[in-house]
C-alpha cells in the first residue's frame, strides 16, 4: 500500500513536470485557461447570436455553460490517461523502463491522471468563475449543495479515470490511432450526454444511448449541486432525485472500475505477447 502511494505521488509529480515545466508558470496558466474559456465563449457567442444575450432564457444558458465547463474534465482525463501510454511508449520511449521498475503500472497511470485532473480543475474553476462573475450565472456559495458537489465530483472522477484506464488498455494494442479513439469517445460523450443541449433534442436512439452513459448523470448532478433552485425542465433527467443520480453514478463507477482492470490487464497481456510494449509507430 505504501509502495503504491509512493508510485501515485511520484507519477503525479512526473506528470505535472511534463505538463508544466516547458514554460514559466504565468504562461502555463494562460495556456491552461485560454483553451477552455475560448471553448465556452464559442457557445456564449452562438447563444448571443441567436437569442440576443445571455440573460434571455437564463436557465437554458446556465444549463449549457455549466455542462460545457464540467466537460473539460471528460476531455482532459480521457485523453490524458490514454495519451500516457502513447507518449511514454513512443515519444519518450520510457514505457519499457517503467515496466521493469518495481512499481505497479496501474497506479503509475492513475498518478499521471492525477496531474491531468489538477490542470483540468484549474481550467474548470476559472471557467466557472468567468461564468459567475462575467456572465452572471447565479451560482451562490450559500445555497449550492456542497455535499452533492463533493460526492459527485469524487465519484465522477473515479468513473472518468476508470474509463480512461480502460481506453489505455486498448491503447496498448493500437498505434497512432489512440488519439482518434480518445477524441472519438469524448466526442460521442459531447453529443450524447446532454453536455450543451438537453438530450431530448436527440432522436430516440440517441437519447437511449445518452441514458446508458454515466457522464449524462454526472453532468446533471453537477448542475443540480451548483444551481439546486434553478433547473431546466424538459432535459429528460429533470425528475430524477439526487439520491438516484448518486446511486447510478456510484454503480457505474464501480462497473467501470472492474471493467478497466479487466481491459487494462488484457491489453497489457496481449501487448506483451505481441511484443508491442516498446512499439514505435513514427508518431
Amino acid at each position, binding site marked *: 500500500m505504501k509502495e503504491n502511494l509512493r508510485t501515485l505521488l511520484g507519477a503525479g509529480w512526473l506528470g505535472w513536470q*511534463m505538463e508544466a515545466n*516547458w*514554460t514559466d508558470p504565468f504562461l502555463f496558466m494562460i*495556456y491552461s485557461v*485560454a*483553451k*477552455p474559456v*475560448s*471553448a465556452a*465563449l*464559442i*457557445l456564449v*457567442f*452562438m*447563444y*448571443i*447570436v*441567436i*437569442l*440576443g444575450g445571455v440573460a*434571455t*432564457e437564463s436557465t*437554458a444558458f446556465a444549463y*449549457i455553460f455549466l455542462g460545457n465547463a464540467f466537460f473539460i474534465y471528460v476531455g482532459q482525463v480521457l485523453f490524458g490517461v490514454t495519451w500516457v501510454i502513447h507518449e511514454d511508449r513512443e*515519444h*519518450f520511449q520510457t514505457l519499457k523502463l517503467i515496466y521493469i521498475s518495481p512499481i505497479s503500472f496501474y497506479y503509475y497511470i492513475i498518478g499521471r491522471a492525477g496531474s491531468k485532473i489538477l490542470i483540468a480543475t484549474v481550467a474548470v474553476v476559472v471557467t466557472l468563475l468567468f461564468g459567475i462573475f462575467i456572465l452572471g450565472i447565479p451560482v451562490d456559495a450559500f445555497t449550492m449543495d456542497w455535499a452533492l458537489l463533493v460526492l459527485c465530483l469524487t465519484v465522477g472522477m473515479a468513473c472518468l479515470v476508470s474509463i480512461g484506464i480502460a481506453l489505455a488498455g486498448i491503447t496498448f494494442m493500437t498505434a*497512432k*490511432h489512440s488519439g*482518434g*479513439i480518445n*477524441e*472519438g469517445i469524448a*466526442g*460521442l460523450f*459531447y*453529443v450524447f450526454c446532454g*453536455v*450543451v*443541449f*438537453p438530450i431530448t*433534442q*436527440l432522436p430516440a436512439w440517441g437519447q437511449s444511448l445518452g441514458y446508458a452513459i454515466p457522464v449524462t448523470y454526472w453532468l446533471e448532478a453537477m448542475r443540480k449541486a451548483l444551481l439546486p433552485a434553478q433547473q431546466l425542465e424538459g432535459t429528460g433527467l429533470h425528475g430524477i432525485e439526487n439520491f438516484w443520480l448518486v446511486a447510478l453514478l456510484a454503480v457505474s463507477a464501480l462497473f467501470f472500475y472492474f471493467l478497466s482492470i479487466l481491459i487494462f490487464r488484457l491489453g497489457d497481456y496481449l501487448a506483451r505477447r505481441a511484443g508491442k510494449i516498446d512499439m514505435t509507430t*513514427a*508518431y
Partner: protein
Amino acid sequence: MKEYLLLNLRALKGRAYPRVVGGTRELSWIFFDTILPLLTVAAYVFVYQYLGSLAQGPQKEYIGQFVGYVILGGAMTAYWMNVLWSMAAQFYWEKEIGNLQLYMIAPMSRMAVLGGMAVGGMFYTTVRAVSTIVIGVLIFGVTFSLGPPIYLILVFLLTLIALYGMGMLFASLYMLYGREAWHTSSLLTEPIYLVSGFYFPVKYMGAIVAVSASIIPITLGLDALRQLMFTETAGIHGFLPVEVELVALAVLSVLFLFLARHSLRFMENLGRKTGRLTMRWQ
C-alpha cells in the same frame, strides 16, 4: 538553374507523395478524420436547433443557415488542424525522429520540402473536409444557395494558399521548439475557432476582433465561402464584401510565402549556431 528547379520539383513531389498515398493507406484514420469533426459539428448543430426552439426573433428563421455555417466551419477545422499539426509542428516531429538533419544535408531547398508538405496536406485534408460536408449535409439536410462558381473556386484556392503559406511560416518558427511545439499548436485551436468564427459568423465578434482575426486566412476565407454558399443571408451575416476578402486573401498569400522563405533561412541559421537542429526530447 533548370536542374535545380527540377531537383526542387522532385523534392516537392517526394514530400507530397507520402501524404497523398498515406492518406488512404490507413483506413481507420479516414474514419477518425471524417467522423471526429462531425461529432463536434453535430453537437453544435443540436445547440443551434435547441436555441432555435427558444428563439422568438428574426434569427429563428435562419437556423437552417446557421446549421450550414457550422458544417462548413467544422469542415474547415480539418484544414486548420492540418496546418497546425502537419505543417507548423512537422519540423518538430521530423527533428524528434531524426529526419530534419537529413533534410538539412540534402541538396534541395527547404521551401520545396515545405511546399510538398503543403500540397500533400491540402489533398489529404480536402478529401476529409469534403466528406465531412457531404455527410453533414446529408444528415442535417442543409440546402445551399450558391453564388458565382468562379468566386467560390478563387476564394477556396486563395484561402488554402494563404493558409498553407502561414503553415510554412509557422513550420520555420517551430523548428527550434521542444515540447512548446505541442502546446503551442494545442493552444491555437479553440481560441482560433472563437476569433475566426468557425461556428458562427465572425461579424458578431465585433469589427475590431474580426479585423484582427483576419490575419488568419481562414477567417476571411470562411466568411467569404459562407456568403457564396448561402447567398440569401450574405448581406445579413457577412463581414466584408466578397471582393474585398478576395483581395485580402491574395495579399495574405503573397505575404505569408515571402515571410516563410525568409523566416526559414533565419531560423535555420539560428538553429545551426545554437546547435538545436538535432536536439531531441526537450
